[in-house]
Every structure is written in structure tokens, then in C-alpha cells.
């Protein structure tokens, strides 16, 4: 071979070798020395860490109906530093997203001035808005998936469910108290993308943990009726607020919990609208008034020898209690214990309380669950206010006996009512359907509970009962107690003439399936008593509840007669018993009590005038041998009453009078009998 050519070839080989060596060196630098750096760059470019949303758990009612649920929602983000024309961008985005273009432009400009490459344009937009934005196909518009909480029934059970803030953290109701369970934990997924940003491989880095669904004991149908009826009555009486608790006395399930005013949890809180978000049924203690006589009489049946037919001295409408004169709303010389409850005599209740004694009464107040929280998973629950026995004054016994000097919540009252309805057991309320039922605690003997049921039924059945006109159900027996308590004015430090009108009852009497407590706050006048105000709400909600639960009727369905006697609807528990101790709901101590007396006495005198005027209308006006209403009365009462009127009576069955013929109010022909059917 030509040596010259050989040299050339050798030269070429050397050059090629050097070239290859350089390439190899560069490759080693790129792939070995700087491997991690370039691998990271490649990963940044090709791989994307996507968040796997863990939706917040839904809240369901006892039948699985959704009360709250979460849906994914997209939010719009832009990088203002990449936006080509700020004003045009603001115009376009504002038009699609229904925003103010000027404000958006200002935000964009501020972000550019501050060299910020991230700006939320609008969060949680609709799908239509997202589709319109996607159609623009602009690379500097980014979508972030978030979650939006929906309450499809709007204000239904709003106080129980609560609401969430923008980050989907609960800020009220079970949304707050069960936030840990409801809130899911988002996962992460690594997605590998091609040059067109299409993912072609993915691996889950962290498994998402979706929030758990929470099933409540609430029955949305009963809840709906409860809210409707409560709102109707609050509006009718121009009251300030109202609360209702409906409970199953067998399991403690809260079937409905309603408050007025209410709110729509879909809407963010408005200034001044926070008060409407307060769950008054669990967080606002109030003086219960006459409904509390149920507790007093129950403790009397347990600790004394008093029976329903025992005659109680009612002092002709007044009593001197340790130097203080207390007046009743109506004048009674003496009433049977059952009638003390039916007519809601304050003096009778005080005298019964005196026989029970402060120690026993306090013990039963505690046994019935007052003064401590029920333990429902609701934020802000109040335990009520029960003054320790050592701080009771001489007149405290009288006050507590008729439901004053004590603060209770509607929920506590419902819990206490289950003691009567469940045959003597205190049943803990339950709001979660999957929560274990707390073993009930016996508070009353079964016979005491049954006796109390009968006496409470008398409040509804007896024509003079305070709940006779308003709490009777078609086709069902019912029992209850009305209550009208004066409201204490914390600023003026005196009782006002506004009332807390309450009704506490259950149905059916023999095998109660529903316990309902209704409290309407801020009623006025005679129409604002517990009977005409709260008892109709009980009647409507109980009827709807029993129908929804398909409870068999225990009475023939007939229109109840109003009876010939005028029902005594006035059951105001005269709050001012001249006690020197301050109001139990006031934190300040003794200093102001003495100053309050003149004002309170004046109010009391005014109240008496009103009450005496009403008494004039409540007198019997029998005109000849009319048939009285025996319904709800025991055999002995019927015999006594019939004998007093000279009416012959024929009996069948045992228990209390359920039906009679002729109907009450009819004139009995000479030689005829009144047939009365008794039943349990």
C-alpha cells in the first residue's frame, strides 16, 4: 500500500479515536458523573406527581338519605408572569367566570408587580365554566381539582350536620365533632407523561384514605315536619327562637333536632348570622318551668307515700315559703297529685317538693341527667346549670320544684322524659346509628314510671288539663306536660313577661315510640303559654313520626271532643319566689339580688292581675245534668265525680277511662246511664 495513504489512514484513525474518546468522555460525564442531576431533570419533565383526592365522607340519615356529600370541583389558576396581555386576559376570564374584570386585572397586575407566578382566579367553578375555559386551550391556565361540600336538603337538620369552611374542615355540628372520621387523606400517584403530556404509566405512591360516611339516627322525614311546624309556630307567636328534640325512648336515637332560626349550610356565614347557626337545643340552657314538675312528682312517688290520688294543699293560690309569699296562676284549695300535674299548680308542686325534701329532690335532679352533658357528638353542648345542694337557699326547693333556679337544655329534657317513657330507665341519647347503645340506667321503679305515664296522660286527656286542647292525637294515646317559664333579663336582672313555652311529651302511652320536647322562646301573652304554643307542634310532629314509623294505632281514629270544661292553659311557673339568691344562669353573685326585688315584685303583681282576670273565665258553667268528660280518669275518680253529679255510671275494663257514651257535654236523659270503657 502506498505509504502516503497508509499515513493518511493512520491519521484518520487517530482523529476518529480522539473523536470517539471525546464523545465517550462526554457520555461518561453526562451519564455517570452527572447522572443524578440529569435524571432528576428528566423526571421533572416527564413525571408528574398527581394528588389522588380522598373525598370527605357523606352524612346520611337513618335510612341512607344523603344529608351532606362532597363532589370534586375545579379551581382556576394562572401564572401571571406568563400571561401575554393582562387586560385582555382579565376581560376574557371575567366574562367566562362571572367575575369583575377590573378587580381581576388589579389582582393580576399586583401579582406581576410582586413577581408572583401563581394566582387563584376562581375556586370551585362549575363544570360549564371549566369546559368553556378548557376550550380556550391556553397553556397558562391551569386547573386544580378541589372538593365542594353540598347539602342537598339545604337547611334540613342544619344545626345537627353543621357546615365546613373553605378547606372542608368542619366548623359546626357533626361536621366539626366528627371531622377526623369524615375527612379523608389524599393519596399521591406518579404519572409518566410523553411529549404531548399524555400519561402512559402511573404508580401509586401513597394510597388515598377516603373519609368515612357517617350515618345519623336522624329521620329526615320527621326532621322536615319538625322544622316546618316549629318555624310555623315561632312565626305565628312572633317568638325569638324555638327548639325541638324528638327521640326514640327505646334506643335513645335522636329522630329530629330542629332549631329556629336556622341557616343554609351551603351558604358561607354572613355577618350577624352566626346566632342562627347555634344549636339551641343542646347549647342554650333555660329555666324549664312547669315541665319540670314531672321530675318533682316522680321523685315524690319514689321517696314519699304520695299517690296520684293523694290530696295536696294548694293554699287557695298562695303559700308562705320561709317568709316569702308565692302566688299560683289559679286559685285551688286542694288538688289531687294527678290534678296538680294536670292543672300545673305551682303551689301544689311546691308542697310536693317540700315533702320530697331538698336532698331527695337534688338527688333525682341528678339522676334524671340534669347538670351534666349527654355526650352527643355535637360541639358546644351545655351540661345545663344545677346549683350544688350546699348552695341552695331555703326557697330553692320551691323554685326547683316548679322548674326555676335550674338551667336545662331541650336535649336534657328529652333525655329525662325517656325515663318515664321507657319504664324508669335513663336512656342516653344517640346521634350515630353505628354508635353502641349505652346500657340504660334505672332511675325510677317501673310502677312509678307507669304511674307517671298515667298522670302525664291526664294532662292531655283531662278536659281541664293544660295540654287537653292541643296535644291529643288522632288514633293514638299521648301524654305530656306543658310549661311556661318567665324569661330572665340578664341586663335588667329581673324576670320579664316573655315566656319560654315548652311541651314535653310522648306517644303512645302504653308503649312509647317517640319522645318530643318543644321549646319556644320569647312568646308573650296568654297565647304564648306552653299549651297553645308548643303542644300543637308536639301533636303534629308526633303524628307524623308515628305515621312514618308505622306505629299501630291504639285508639279509634275519631275527632276528639273538646269537653265541657274550660282547659286551664295558664301554667306559668311564677319565677320570682322572692329568693335572695341570684338567678342560676347569672354568673355574678349575690350583690344584685336585693336590688331586683322591687321591680320583680311589681312584675309579680302585674302578673297576678293578669292571672286573676283569666281565672274568671275558667270557672265551671254546668247547666243541668250534663255528662262530664271522664276520659283519662281512674275508676275511683270517675266514681267520685259521677257520685257528686248524681250520674249513674256503668263500667267495663280497668285502667283509665278511654271512651264513654254519651259524649261529654250531652244532657243525660232521666233514667239513663253513662257507659265508660276503661283501658290500660
Amino acid at each position, binding site marked *: 500500500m502506498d*505509504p*502516503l495513504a497508509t*499515513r*493518511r489512514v493512520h*491519521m484518520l484513525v487517530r482523529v476518529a479515536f480522539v473523536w470517539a474518546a471525546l464523545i465517550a468522555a462526554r457520555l461518561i460525564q453526562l451519564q455517570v458523573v452527572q447522572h443524578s442531576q440529569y435524571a432528576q431533570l428528566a423526571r421533572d419533565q416527564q413525571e408528574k406527581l398527581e394528588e389522588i383526592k380522598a*373525598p370527605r365522607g357523606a352524612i346520611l340519615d337513618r335510612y341512607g*338519605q*344523603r344529608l351532606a*356529600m*362532597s*363532589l*370534586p370541583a375545579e379551581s382556576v389558576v394562572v401564572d401571571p408572569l406568563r400571561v401575554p396581555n393582562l387586560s385582555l386576559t382579565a376581560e376574557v376570564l371575567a366574562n367566562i367566570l362571572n367575575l369583575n374584570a377590573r378587580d381581576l386585572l388589579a389582582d393580576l397586575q399586583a401579582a406581576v408587580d410582586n413577581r408572583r407566578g401563581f394566582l387563584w382566579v376562581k375556586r370551585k367553578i362549575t363544570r360549564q365554566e371549566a369546559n368553556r375555559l378548557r376550550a380556550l386551550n391556553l397553556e397558562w391556565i391551569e386547573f386544580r381539582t378541589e372538593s365542594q361540600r*353540598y347539602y*342537598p*336538603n*339545604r337547611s*334540613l337538620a342544619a344545626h345537627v350536620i353543621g357546615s365546613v369552611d373553605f378547606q372542608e374542615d368542619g366548623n359546626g355540628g357533626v361536621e366539626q365533632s366528627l371531622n377526623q372520621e369524615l375527612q379523608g387523606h389524599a393519596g399521591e400517584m406518579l*404519572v*409518566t407523561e410523553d411529549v404531548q403530556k*399524555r*400519561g*402512559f*404509566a*402511573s404508580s401509586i405512591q401513597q394510597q388515598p384514605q377516603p373519609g368515612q360516611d357517617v350515618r345519623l339516627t336522624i329521620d*329526615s*322525614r320527621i*326532621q*322536615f315536619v319538625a322544622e*316546618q311546624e316549629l318555624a310555623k309556630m315561632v312565626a305565628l307567636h312572633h317568638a325569638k327562637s324555638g327548639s325541638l328534640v324528638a327521640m326514640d325512648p327505646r334506643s335513645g336515637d335522636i329522630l329530629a333536632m330542629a332549631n329556629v332560626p336556622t341557616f343554609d349550610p351551603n351558604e358561607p356565614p354572613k355577618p350577624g348570622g352566626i346566632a342562627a347557626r347555634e344549636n339551641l337545643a343542646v347549647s342554650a340552657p333555660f329555666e324549664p318551668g312547669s315541665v319540670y314538675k314531672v321530675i318533682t312528682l316522680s321523685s315524690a312517688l319514689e321517696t314519699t307515700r304520695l299517690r296520684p290520688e293523694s290530696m295536696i294543699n294548694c293554699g287557695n293560690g298562695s303559700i308562705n315559703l320561709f317568709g316569702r309569699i308565692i302566688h299560683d296562676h289559679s286559685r285551688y284549695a286542694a288538688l289531687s297529685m294527678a290534678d296538680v300535674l294536670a292543672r300545673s299548680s305551682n303551689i301544689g308542686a311546691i308542697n310536693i317538693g317540700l315533702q320530697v325534701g331538698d336532698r331527695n329532690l337534688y338527688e333525682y335532679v341528678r339522676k334524671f341527667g340534669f347538670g351534666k352533658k349527654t355526650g352527643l357528638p355535637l360541639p358546644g353542648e351545655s351540661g345545663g346549670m344545677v346549683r350544688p345542694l350546699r348552695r341552695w337557699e331555703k326557697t330553692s326547693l320551691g323554685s326547683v320544684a316548679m322548674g326555676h333556679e335550674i338551667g336545662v337544655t331541650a336535649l336534657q329534657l328529652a333525655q329525662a322524659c325517656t325515663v318515664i317513657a321507657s319504664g324508669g330507665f335513663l336512656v342516653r341519647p344517640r346521634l350515630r346509628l353505628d354508635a353502641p347503645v349505652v346500657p340504660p340506667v334505672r332511675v325510677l321503679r317501673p310502677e312509678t314510671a307507669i304511674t307517671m305515664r298515667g298522670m302525664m296522660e291526664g294532662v292531655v286527656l283531662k278536659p281541664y288539663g293544660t295540654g287537653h286542647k292541643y296535644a291529643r292525637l288522632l*288514633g293514638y294515646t299521648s301524654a305530656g306536660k306543658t310549661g311556661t317559664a318567665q324569661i330572665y333579663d340578664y341586663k335588667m336582672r329581673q324576670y320579664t313577661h316573655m315566656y319560654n313555652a315548652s311541651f314535653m311529651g310522648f306517644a303512645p302511652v302504653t308503649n312509647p315510640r317517640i319522645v318530643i320536647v318543644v321549646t319556644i322562646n320569647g312568646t308573650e301573652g296568654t297565647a304564648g303559654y306552653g299549651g297553645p304554643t308548643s303542644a300543637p307542634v308536639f301533636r303534629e310532629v308526633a303524628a*307524623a313520626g*308515628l*305515621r312514618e314509623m*308505622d*306505629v*299501630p*294505632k291504639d285508639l279509634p*281514629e275519631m275527632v276528639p271532643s273538646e269537653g265541657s270544661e274550660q282547659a286551664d292553659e295558664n301554667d306559668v311557673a311564677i319565677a320570682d319566689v322572692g329568693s335572695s339568691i341570684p338567678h342560676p344562669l347569672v354568673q355574678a353573685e349575690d350583690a344584685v339580688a336585693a336590688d331586683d326585688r322591687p321591680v320583680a315584685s311589681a312584675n309579680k303583681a302585674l302578673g297576678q292581675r293578669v292571672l286573676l282576670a283569666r281565672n274568671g273565665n275558667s270557672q265551671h258553667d254546668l247547666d243541668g245534668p250534663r255528662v262530664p268528660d271522664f276520659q283519662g280518669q281512674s275508676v275511683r275518680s270517675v266514681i267520685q265525680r259521677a257520685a257528686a253529679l248524681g250520674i249513674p255510671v256503668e263500667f267495663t275494663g280497668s285502667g283509665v277511662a278511654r271512651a264513654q257514651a254519651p259524649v261529654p257535654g250531652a244532657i243525660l236523659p232521666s233514667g239513663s246511664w253513662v257507659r265508660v270503657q276503661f283501658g290500660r
Partner: protein
Amino acid sequence: MATLATIMDRFTAANSAAADCSRTRVLEDADPFEVPRFPNEDVYFYVKHIDNSHVLREVDPGARKTCWRLIGSSFTFAVLVIGLLLPSVNRMMAGYRMEALRQERQRLELDRASLELAETKLVSPARLEELARIQRFVDPAPEAVVYLDANKSDAILAKK
């Protein structure tokens, strides 16, 4: 003229003396077939008459075997390459499909949630109450409601 050959010759100038002598010797020999040289170039072209009309192709018995071996090895190589690449390609295609399905699932879940929300709104007590009011429905009596089980006797009862 600056051709690659002259450039390389400059690098190899030290050893060029002997080459120059031989070249001179060649140039000095008159050659009738020599093409006139280009100026300043040491590239020479010759025209040579070749008559291949009498050339016969020799039959190579091993050529066929070599050819088949080449075809076989190429096929094997192709199969190996495809066999090695196919799973990766398949995996990538499946990845695309999976990602598409994942997005489809997300969309369907969103649709389902939206439908559940719509359903809940439709059966809300407030709406049912309003519909019942419009239709003038009345509440059934408690014992008047009959719940049918999915058994034969109830089905017959329902038909009646």
C-alpha cells in the same frame, strides 16, 4: 489548491522526500495513457481499456449456504429484537389505555356523584311535600300502608 490530500501532505512533509523522487521518476516516464495533470495536483487519472467479455463467473457452492445463513441470522435477530421490544411497547400502549381508563373512571365517578346529588335533591322531603301538595295527596293512616315483599302471594295481591 487546498484539497484534503494537500493538507494531509503538509502534515506529512517530513517524510515526503522519497515520495517526491519516485513521483518524479514516474512523471519522467512517458505514458501514452496518461491524462494531462491538473495544475499543482498530484492526482492522476488513467483510462484503461478492460475487456470482460471473456470473463466467466465462477460458481461458488458455498454462496447459497452463506446467503441462507445470513437470512436466518437476520430473521433470528429480528425476532429477538421484536421479542425484547414487544413487551415494552405493549406496556406503553397498555399504559396509555390505563391512563385513559383512569380518566374515564374519574369522569364517571364525578358523573355518578352529580347524579346522586341530583337524586337527593329530587327526593328531598321539601320537594316531595311540594309535589304532594300540588297533587293533593293525603297522608296515609299508619296501618293503611302495606309493604309488599317479593314473594308470590304478595305479587298476586298487588295485581288484584
